[in-house]
């Protein structure tokens, strides 16, 4: 028993009245702030502040072996760290199920939408580029899925492409950009106290019954993930898909705005 039980009553009371923190709409994001290139040592990086949620994404690329089933492509590896400095309940230690789910959902959205043009990451027989996407949660206040996806896509979109010359990796100097094939973003909804809302903050998320993440580009849904113990009806899913296509226009604009060209 702690403060959260009391917060729960309060949040439920407000949501049934149709009110959210700071007068936010049920289908609005909190303020989104993206900073690109915070970690110049990495091939690409982006820090997002979505309300009080803060996620830093770093992109690294190394030369390695292609996957056996895709010998002429580069590979993608996504990892998530819920750092103990980000929330009092996060522990040090091996990745929790929560962190693994976050990494996999973000990874699927990026992979399915062909955001990275992996064919262009092939170097020579037995050699290709491995792209490491690390999601670093620095302050938790809800909706890690969308903040991590946005930051990851923005980081990739602004990444440099290292060169491989004479068995050596060149990461500095005049480099091309990482080949990008598409842009996709995600929208995550949750049902809290019977009301479906977009972009839950930490205290709303604590009391969410069910969650749905939808990743899409301009034309297609690219990945979906339902989470938590509750359920949606097919009709509800249709509506959320439709809402995501509308919302994702804003998000794509934000990502496009991070690149000068």
């Amino acid at each position, binding site marked *: *028993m*702690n*403060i959260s*039980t*009391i*917060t729960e*009553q*309060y949040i439920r009371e407000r949501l049934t*009245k*149709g*009110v*959210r923190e*700071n*007068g*936010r*709409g*049920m*289908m*609005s994001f909190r303020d989104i702030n993206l900073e690109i290139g915070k970690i110049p040592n990495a091939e690409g990086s982006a820090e997002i502040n979505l309300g009080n949620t803060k996620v830093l994404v770093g992109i690294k690329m190394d030369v390695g072996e292609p996957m056996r089933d895709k010998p002429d492509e580069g590979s993608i590896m996504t990892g998530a760290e819920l750092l103990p400095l980000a929330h009092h309940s996060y522990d040090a230690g091996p990745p929790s199920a929560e962190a693994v789910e976050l990494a996999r959902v973000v990874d699927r959205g990026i992979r399915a939408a062909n955001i990275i043009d992996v064919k262009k990451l092939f170097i020579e027989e037995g050699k290709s580029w491995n792209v490491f996407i690390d999601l670093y949660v620095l302050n938790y206040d809800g909706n890690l899925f969308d903040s991590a996806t946005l930051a990851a896509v923005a980081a990739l979109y602004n990444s440099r492409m290292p060169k491989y010359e004479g068995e050596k990796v060149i990461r500095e100097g005049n480099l091309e950009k990482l080949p990008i094939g598409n842009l996709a973003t995600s929208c995550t909804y949750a049902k809290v106290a019977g009301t*479906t809302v977009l972009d839950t903050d930490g205290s709303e998320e604590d009391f969410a019954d069910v969650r749905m993440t939808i990743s899409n580009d301009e034309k297609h849904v690219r990945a979906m993930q339902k989470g938590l113990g509750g359920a949606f009806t097919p009709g509800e899913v249709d509506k959320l898909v439709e*809402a995501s296509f509308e919302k994702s226009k804003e998000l794509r604009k934000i990502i496009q705005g991070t690149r000068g060209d």
Partner: protein
Amino acid sequence: MKKIVLPGDIIADKPLRLDHTIVEEGKTCSTVIGMFDEAAGSLIPLEGLWYPQPGEKIVGIVEEAKLNTDVITLNAPYKGLIISKFSETSMVNGDIIEATVKELDKTGTIILVRPRVLYGGKVLAIKPSKVPRLLGKNDTMIRQITDGTKASISVGMNGLVWVKGGNSDLATDAIIRIQEESHVSGLTERIAKMVGSTGQPHQPQPQQQG
């Protein structure tokens, strides 16, 4: 002259009996970031923790109601304990209560007396170092808020604040603003303006889906 001091700063070349200081080699040093007033001989921490004193009021949440004792969460590095046989108030887990500190024992447990259950409302956690400012001299600041918003408010010295009824959203905003601007002069006037006796309703506009 008031000035900001930091941990380790020497504030007097002689030993002083002052909270939040230590005496080393005959000199008095601050142990916290705080506002030191040399003339008044006071050091008020700007950040941080609550050091319970007998007689102080707290707001807490019943963590474990047992037959003989109730364990109270105080959002502090101490646990509260109510010995039920001395108290006629019956509580269940999750109740919000206010109570008075009787003593702090060596194991970090606070014995609480005179509990009262607070029904409904919500609990805010603010920095304990800001509580004196929230109350104001002779409770002037907090009275200003309750008068302006008609909300019922109970302030615990441990930094938990219970708010219910009236325009509790406006009261909450005012409390958070006091926390953030506690050391800036003219705060009382700004809060007066904010909660105003003009009776301006401050309701976040409900918004429709989509």
